[in-house]
Every structure is written in structure tokens, then in C-alpha cells.
């Protein structure tokens, strides 16, 4: 390797975040029950300062550090910024929801910050073990967050499912990594890539390892047929936690997929393409069709997540730089839309009432025209109707698939997007065409209302001017 001295600066944001996580942990330990408020403020500060740190290091020297186990490049910078920004928003969304349900505790924020740290490590990992450490740091925190609502049977059940299936997935991933280690003799992604490129690696062993690796990735992303945990966890977890799980961790999982499949095993693209095609097509089909049958909005959005994952995989499977950029664009856009979608449920909820069934949205446009309009924007965007940003996300991934002549895959994608449009339309139908059955006022605090409006309007604005974000994603892979 060309790096003599360990360049600590490359990991400065993570180090800062780790230090702050420990500080928050201490604060929580000392203040006890009254620690939630300070922990919340400190967490937001931590995330904000980390963003500043990442932002200032952006565009400066990129490269490997810590003996080639850690990388700082444009890809990691952008995704880390997105992760921190999303989590800031998630925490704003969730504070009043947590207060109403007795979950507003310091521990929640400790877990959130540690899990964010895990995501950042995943994004920057360039070594199997680093990657695994990041993944576990993130996942273990998430399991605990789901289980925080101790008295809720569904939440506990969801946490158990999440933990067990997540552990199996981690096991699969580790097994795949160990086989690839056996084939290439290295755990570092850069060395693995070089070794495979140089030739002489037993392809059977490699493919065998690859299968398990993809199973692991599929689990974490929630791609069919490894999606079973996703609806139950999304549905069972407190909505604030669902919001957390549904946004930033998806970006981290996407980064993991890119690191493993593209950076590490990019030269055996032919071997994994077929598997990803299967995952992608199945996710789009099952996700979209099963979502139609849901009456619970959280569950419906969970299945819609699965279908979106299918679309994200489209870009990866194309195997072109343009495709990877398209996937990245899709992942960022998706997390923004999903933030708004689950955010809306939180916005509508109040003490002792979860607005998580579709019927709760009946007649919203006469009760609350503004928020109905915002939700309309989000739903049409998820359905991929222009001029909203979800359309460009679909456009770019489908374009990348067509450019590598996988026309039949693109056909499945567009037909499924029509089927998918149905259940998003149903939400709009309920909001706009049905009569209201309840007339309670919205109780959400001002900061959440503002954030939600900004969120939805961003989706709209990005739809009119998608150019800069698209250019940013493209620049990463060129």
C-alpha cells in the first residue's frame, strides 16, 4: 500500500461523533431521568457539527487510511452528509411523538448517535471487518431502539424478529466474507479487487462467497426474498423508530452494497448481475402487489420500501458508472420521500392516537388542505409521476438499464410502477375524495410542521430542478 502514515484527518467526523456519543452517554448516566432534553440538544449539535466537519473536508484529498481499511472519497462524503442531515430531521420529527408516549429518554439519543456512527463507518469501510463492525454497531442500536417501547407487545415482537433475522443476515454476510477471504487471501476490498483482476482466483469459490454476500446485502436492504422482517418491523416499531430505520440506514445499506459489489467485486459483475436482477424484479413485483392489500399505512409504506429497493437495485445491476450514480440518486431521493411519508404519520398522530391506518387520512384535504397537499406531493413522487423528483429517480435507473440493453428488465420495472401507482393513488383518494370521519385538530408542534412542509416542498423543488443533485451523484462515479 502507498500509505505510510495513518491519516487521522480522514476519519475526523467519525472520531468527533464517537467522542460526543460518549459525552452524551455520560450526561445521560449522570442526569438520569431528566437527561432527555440535554441529550436531544447535544445529539442535534453533534450531528450538525459533524456535518460541518464533513463539509469542510469535502473535495480535499481523498484516499485510504488506517492500513487501507478506511476510505474517504466523494461517495462517502456525500452519503455521510445525507445520513447526518436525515437524522437531524428524523430527531426533530420524533421528539414530540416520543414525549407523548413516554419514550423521550436520554438512552434513545445515545442509541441514535451510536447508530449514526455505525452508518458512517459502513459508508467509509474499505475492509470486510470494518464494514462488519459498522454494520453491527448500526444494527444493534436499531434493535434496541425498536424494543424501547417495552410495554408494547408489537414493538417487542418486532424487535425480536428484527434481531433474529438481522443476526442471521450478519451471519450470512460473515460467512460470505470468509469464503471470499479463502478465495482471495485478503479482507481488504482494494486487495480483493486487485487479486481478482490479476486472475487466478477460483471462480467457483468466489461465486459461492458472492451468494452469501448478496444474501447479507439483500437482508439489510430488505430485498425480496429476504424482506420478511421489513413489514413487521416497520409496522411494530414506534413510528419515530420506523422513521429512523426507514431513512438513513437505507443509505448505509446502499453504500455497503456499492462498496462490496462495485468496489470489491466489480470485476465479477457478470457473476452477480443475474442474482441482483432476480432480487430486483422480485422486490418490485412482491413489494408493489402486496402493498395494494394493506390497510395500515406503515405496512403499506414498508412494502413500498421493498419495491423502491427493487428500483435501487436496477441501477446497481446495470454495472455502469451511470447506473451506480442513478442508484445513488434514487437512494437519496427515496430516503427523502420516505422521511416525509412516515413523518406524515407522526404529524397526524397525537397522544394516545396513532394515525397509521389509511382510514385515518379520510377527508384530510377538507380538514387540513396544506398538509393534504404536501402528502399528495409525496405520494405522487413515490409513484414516480413527474414533475416530482421520484420520477427522475425512476427515469435514471430505467435509463441505465436500457443503456445496457436489459430491455425486458426495464419493462417489468415500468409495468410495476403502474401497479404501484394504484396504492399511492388510494392515499390521495382517501384524502381528497372521501368524507372526513374525524375532526380533531392537528396537535403537532410548529417545528415539525415546518420541517414536514420543507421536506415535501424539497421533493417538489427537486422535481423541477433535479439537475444539481443528479450532477453531484454522477460526479462521484465518473
Amino acid at each position, binding site marked *: 500500500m502507498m500509505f505510510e502514515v495513518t491519516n487521522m484527518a480522514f476519519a475526523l467526523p467519525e472520531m468527533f461523533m464517537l467522542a460526543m456519543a460518549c459525552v452524551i452517554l455520560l450526561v445521560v448516566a449522570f442526569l438520569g431521568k431528566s437527561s432527555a432534553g440535554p441529550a436531544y440538544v447535544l445529539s442535534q449539535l453533534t450531528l450538525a457539527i459533524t456535518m460541518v466537519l464533513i463539509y469542510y473536508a469535502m473535495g480535499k484529498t481523498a484516499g485510504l487510511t488506517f492500513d487501507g481499511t478506511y476510505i474517504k472519497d466523494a461517495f462517502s462524503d456525500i452519503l455521510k452528509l445525507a445520513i447526518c442531515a436525515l437524522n437531524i430531521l428524523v430527531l426533530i420529527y420524533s421528539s414530540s411523538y416520543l414525549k407523548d408516549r413516554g419514550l423521550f429518554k436520554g438512552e434513545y439519543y445515545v442509541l441514535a448517535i451510536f447508530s449514526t456512527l455505525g452508518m458512517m463507518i459502513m459508508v467509509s469501510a474499505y475492509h470486510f471487518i470494518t464494514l462488519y463492525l459498522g454494520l453491527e454497531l448500526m444494527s444493534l442500536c436499531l434493535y434496541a431502539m425498536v424494543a424501547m417501547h417495552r410495554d408494547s407487545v408489537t414493538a417487542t415482537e418486532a424487535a425480536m424478529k428484527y434481531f433474529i433475522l438481522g443476526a442471521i443476515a450478519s451471519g450470512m454476510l460473515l460467512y460470505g466474507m470468509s469464503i471470499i477471504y479463502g478465495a482471495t487471501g485478503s479482507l481488504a476490498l482494494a486487495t480483493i479487487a486487485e487479486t481478482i483482476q490479476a486472475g487466478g482466483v477460483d471462480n467457483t469459490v468466489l461465486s459461492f462467497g458472492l451468494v452469501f454476500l448478496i444474501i447479507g446485502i439483500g437482508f439489510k436492504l430488505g430485498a425480496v426474498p429476504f424482506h420478511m422482517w421489513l413489514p413487521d418491523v416497520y409496522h411494530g416499531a414506534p413510528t419515530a423508530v420506523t422513521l429512523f430505520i426507514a431513512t438513513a440506514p437505507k443509505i448505509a445499506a446502499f453504500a455497503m452494497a456499492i462498496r462490496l459489489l462495485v468496489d470489491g467485486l466489480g470485476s465479477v459483475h457478470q457473476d452477480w448481475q443475474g442474482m441482483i436482477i432476480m432480487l430486483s424484479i422480485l422486490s418490485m413485483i412482491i413489494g408493489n402487489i402486496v402493498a395494494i392489500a394493506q390497510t395500515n399505512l406503515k405496512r403499506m409504506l414498508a412494502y413500498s420500501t421493498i419495491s423502491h429497493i427493487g428500483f435501487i437495485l436496477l441501477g446497481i445491476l446495470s454495472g455502469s458508472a451511470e447506473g451506480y450514480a442513478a442508484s445513488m440518486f434514487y437512494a437519496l431521493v427515496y430516503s427523502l420521500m420516505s422521511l416525509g411519508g412516515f413523518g406524515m404519520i407522526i404529524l397526524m398522530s397525537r397522544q394516545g392516537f396513532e394515525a397509521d391506518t389509511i382510514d385515518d387520512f379520510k377527508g384530510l384535504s377538507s380538514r387540513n388542505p396544506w398538509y393534504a397537499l404536501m402528502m399528495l406531493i409525496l405520494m*405522487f413522487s413515490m409513484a414516480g*409521476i*413527474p*414533475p416530482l423528483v421520484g*420520477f*427522475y429517480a425512476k*427515469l*435514471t435507473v*430505467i*435509463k441505465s438499464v*436500457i*443503456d445496457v440493453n436489459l*430491455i425486458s428488465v*426495464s*419493462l417489468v420495472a*415500468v*409495468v410495476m*410502477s*403502474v401497479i404501484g*401507482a*394504484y396504492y399511492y*393513488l*388510494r392515499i*390521495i*383518494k382517501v384524502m*381528497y*375524495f372521501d368524507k372526513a370521519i374525524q375532526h380533531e385538530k392537528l396537535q403537532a408542534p410548529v417545528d415539525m410542521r415546518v420541517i414536514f412542509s420543507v421536506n415535501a416542498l424539497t421533493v417538489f423543488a427537486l422535481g423541477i430542478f*433535479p*439537475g444539481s443533485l*443528479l*450532477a453531484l451523484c*454522477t460526479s462521484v462515479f465518473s
Partner: protein
Amino acid sequence: MIIDFPLLSLLIWLPIIGGVAVLVNGDNNPWARPLSLLVSLLTLVLSLGLYIGFDNTTYEMQFVEQAPWIATFDINYFLGIDGFSMPLIILTAFATVIVVVAGWQVIQMRPSQYMAAFLIMEGLMIAVFSSLDAILFYVFFEAMLIPLFLVIGIWGGPNRVYATIKFFLYTLFGSVFLLLALLYLHHVAGSFSILDYHDVALSMEEQFWLFLAFLIAFAVKVPMWPVHTWLPDAHVEAPTGGSVILAAITLKIGGYGLIRFALPITPDASLALDWLVIGLSLTAVVYIGFVALVQKDMKKLIAYSSIAHMGFVTLGLFIVFRIFANSSTGSGAVLAVEGAMVQMISHGFIATAMFLCVGVLYDRMHTREISAYGGVANTMPIFAGFAVFFAMANAGLPGTSGFVGEFMVILAAFQANFWFAFFAAITLILGAAYSLWMVKRVIFGEVSNDNVAQLEDINRREFWMLASLAIIILAIGLWPAPLTEVMHASVEHLLTQVSQSKI
């Protein structure tokens, strides 16, 4: 000519921004209606600028505007019009004014949202007609569905939810194939400009699939038999304004799409598959004509008659291949395409008028059943006069615009094949039958019940609305030259494109 002035952008964004302004104003604001009228009138006046500044002698795109939009993919904000799009833009601007006036008193529920939806839709539709970048076209093409979806769903009849979701999914299903085709063409042509698509060489197999994609997308919009079933539902449930826009403009986008995409980009596949389109068109003309005959609901009857009339448009566009095969001059081909265009414009006005007439009756009686009426002429004489006139125009009476387009297409069809002309001409009988029979049952005869006896004749607003339409229909019928002149150069250019193989 005023080339540098971004007139097209103004026409697109003025109604959209105006619509947003109306929306923001809120439903209780008394200014919602006048502001909407002002915006739509201003747009109409500005759109006439296109006609005045238009250069008849060239097929080249005019009023061109180009600016980078999504630089990464080389997607441009690329606008321009030719003889095909210009009349349709003016039709759009006109129809929107009519819709605003028609909804003036009738729409009491959320009036500003209603007006805003139509104004925004107007901007989007004008943008569809003037986009020369494929992605830009597609964005507007799809975005147009959102306001129409809401209009039918919110202000529609009892079965509106079913109708609007069916409408949305049907058209979305058609258009996603268009998206695939456009992306594939970009893959081949290396650009998203529609004009570059026109010049790209394609193998027969590629053309075949692309043509099918175009056909699915635009056949749903036109709508052609057998993908027409969304239209009667949507029309019946939609409020009057929604029906007007559906019939007058969105159907035209189907025909326009065939002219802009299918014919010039895939001429060889169009030639090879012209039997399919001609067959479907004649089915629409004859079979749907019979279906219209037995309708009990007035709006449904007009909806089916729309399908039959649009059959003429697709027929006119696709018999050109047969005409080329039969004669060397191709003068009949010009007649066919111009006939199709005139038919589109004329149907835009006539269908608008017919739906408004139904709307006038519906506002008073709250039923569209033909059997609920009878003898309306006794209580609403002025209205009856208009209704009979429009029904005559719908049946293709000489002197009205309905005659011109149909006659041109039938005349051209004789040069293609006698039987095409024969079946197409059946519409003259069928059109007269269903239009006049409806008039007979609704307008004439004895006053059938008390409700009809208490009807009041049309007020000033309704009078001017219908009168302006009557004048235009008569004007085009008596002197269609101003309309055909502007499109002549574009039609000839289209025919040269169509007659050159791209393989």
C-alpha cells in the same frame, strides 16, 4: 417576427403561476373567479400572438427556445411549434376560457381549487404541445394527469373515484411504454431532442417495437378501440369542465403524439402496421357509432361519438401509406393529414359545445338521462337553437367545421381504398342518427314532465359561451383556409419524412 420574446414560455407559465396564485388565494376569496378569467383570457390573447407571428411558409420549428435543464443527461428546456402544434395551443387556450366561464356559478365547492386545477392544466397542455425535448414532453404529458385526476375525483359524479382511478391508471399504463421508447431512442440517437429522433436510422425490428410503444401510449389517449373504455366512465363522472378539457384537448394529445412521434420516427413500422391502425379506426367509426346510438346517458353518447370522431383522425393519418402506394403524386395524402388535423380542431370545439349543452341541462335538472327530458325546446328556445346547431355540427352538416375534416378524410380515403371510404362514410349516417335522435328525444316533442316545464332558458353567461363556440364552428366550416394554411408546410414535411425509409 418577434423571435426573441419567449412567448411559448409565457404561455406555459402564465396560467401555471396564475393557477397557483388562485389556489393560494383560498376558496372564500371572491377574486378567485375573476382572476382565473383574467389569466385565461390573457393567455388566449397571447396565444393569438402565435398565429400572428407564425410563418406559414416553413415547416421548421418556430418560436424556438432552448436552455439546458438537466445538464448531466443533456435534457433541455427546448420549446418550439410548427403547423401541427400551433392550432392545438390556441384551442387549449380557448377551451380553458370556456371552462372557467362554464364553472363560474356552477362550481360552489372549493371554487379556487377548481379554477387553479384548470389553469395549471392549461399551462401543462400548452407545454406538451410545444416541447421538443423528449423528457420535457414526457414530464408535461404525465404531469397533466395530476390535475385532471383531482378534478374528476373531487368535483365528479357519484362514481367518480372509480372513474378517475381507471382514467389515471389506464393512461399511465400507456405512457410508461412511451417512456421506455423515448429512453431507447436516446440510447440510439444520443440526444433527447425529438427532432434528432426524427433523423435517427432504425432497423425494422426496432421500429416495430417502438411503434407499438407509441401506439399503446397514444391509442389510450386518443382513445382508439379497444382501449377506449376509460373515456365514457371519465366523461360521465367528470364535471362539465373536466369533460370539456378531456374531449377538447387530452384526446388531441393522442393524435398529436402520433403525428409527432409515431409517423416520423417509425415510418417503416407505420407502413407495415397501417392495417392495424386503419382497422381499429374503422372499428371505432362504425362499431362505436352504433354503440353511441343506444346510449341512455347524454354524456356517454357524446363520449362515444368522440371516440368515433377521433377514429377519423387516426384513419386520416394512416391511410397516407395506402395513398402513396396507389398514386405517385401524394396530393391525397396531404388531404388526409390535413383532414385529420382539421377534424381534431373541429372536434375540440364541437365536443366542447356538446358537453356544455349537457352541462347547461344538468345544472338545471341534475340528471343526464335522455329519458328524463323531452320538449326542452318549449321552455328553453334559445338553448334549443344552439343545441340543434351543435348536434348538426356533430353529425357533420356541411357549413360546420364537423363537415370539413370528415369530408377531407373521406375524400382522401377514396384514393386509398374504396372500402375504407365506404365504412368511413357510414359515420355520416350514424353520426346524424345518434346526434339527431338525441336531439329529438331531449329537445323536441311535448313537454314530458313538470321538471322540464319549469326550466329556465340560458342566461347571458351561457349564451355568450355557446355563441362564441357556434361562431367558431361556423367560421371553420365556411372558411377553413386560415386553419389549413398554417399547417400546410408542416404536413408536407411530415409526408416527406413518412415516405422515406429509415432502415
